């Protein structure tokens, strides 16, 4: 159990998916202008990452031992189709939830955090529960980074920014400072 909690903490803080591995940068740059949207995006990410982890574990355990060269292709295809199915089910079962997460789901499927999670999980040879905690940690980490970024950007809007620094340059430099702040967590150590 301690091992699982350690995986969770380590992926949220020490090896944050966005700030240490640069995964999920598109939403990090794209939908981080408002805290509320950032939070919803984060929730949708946690959801898809969890599904991905289960998928990847099933594929790895039952199929890919015999054909490792199909790994990348099968991950992409299976994850994309499953998210599509889940999206349809949610739309049918809970329209309210769909309204909250719906528009983000298709965007997320082709996000590098999703494929990244599946591949990292494979490389680290995690079992089912380790993978699950890894996925939840990664999702929470993404949400944390997104919300922090969005709050800083909401404030930065009221600041006087020189013309050459407006837009992407400012976002990247803020991200750099955030990433530096997260380097402090490296003192906690890292999961093997």
């Amino acid at each position, binding site marked *: 159990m301690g091992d699982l909690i350690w995986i969770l903490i380590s992926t949220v803080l020490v090896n944050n998916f966005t700030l240490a591995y640069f995964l999920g940068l598109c939403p990090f*740059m794209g939908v981080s202008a408002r805290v509320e949207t950032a939070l919803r995006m984060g929730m949708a990410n946690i959801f898809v990452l969890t599904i991905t982890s289960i998928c990847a574990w099933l594929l790895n355990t039952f199929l890919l031992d015999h054909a490792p060269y199909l*790994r*990348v292709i099968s991950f992409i295809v299976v994850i994309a189709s499953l998210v599509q199915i889940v999206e349809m089910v949610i739309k049918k079962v809970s329209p309210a939830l769909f309204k909250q997460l719906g528009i983000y789901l298709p965007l997320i499927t082709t996000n590098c955090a999703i494929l990244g999670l599946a591949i*990292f999980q494979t490389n680290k040879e995690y079992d089912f529960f380790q993978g699950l905690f890894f996925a939840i940690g990664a999702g929470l980490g993404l949400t944390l980074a997104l919300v922090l970024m969005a709050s800083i950007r909401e404030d930065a809007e009221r600041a006087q920014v020189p013309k050459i620094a407006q837009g992407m340059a*400012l976002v990247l430099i803020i991200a750099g400072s955030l990433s530096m702040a997260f380097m402090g967590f490296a003192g906690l150590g890292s999961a093997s």
Partner: protein
Amino acid sequence: MRETTPKQDLFRGIWKENPVLIQMLGLCPALAVTNTVENSLAMGVATFFVLLGSSLSVSLLKKFIPGEVRISTYIMIIATFVTVADMSLEAMVPVVHKKLGAFIALIVVNCMILGRQEAFASKRPVGRALLDAVGVGTGFMIAMVMMGGVREILGMGSFLNIPLFGDNYEPWVVMILPAGGFLTLGFWLLGLNWWAERKKQRQKVLAARESSERRAA
């Protein structure tokens, strides 16, 4: 659809519409594996190969790919070339392959590659698609080396593992850490924006001078 000449197809991706520095596509590899020039080059070459292969295949197969499932088809084609690149790198340069790790497989979700298929290769003849792929691939490689160069020189005091500053140099360790990736790209963009702004100002001054001279004459 805007008509372009073959020359434009080849050259615009290199600088004017550079995928990383101008269009901000493919940021994940541009930040993640550019801590040394060697890694940047390896990633650049792998991406170039995947882009070239996918553009060629998509352009050849465009008549057979049904519109409704085109994106998934492109992704399958890209994933095939990524698997080839992954296995070739593992066989030829195992050390570099180990350093790049999962990021080679992540070329699949590099939006720059998918973007070129959707926007260009699926609508143009094979020759044009290849020219475009070469241009964009070269542009990506240039951006990767710009990132890797700055980060390796400042972070380790060397370029392509050749020491530059002698023993007394104190390396800026932060540059080879993740934070350095964000900061380097941020400062490159600052520099490029400053350059573009300066050029605009100069043109304004020149235009103003010309019109006043004309008035005087």
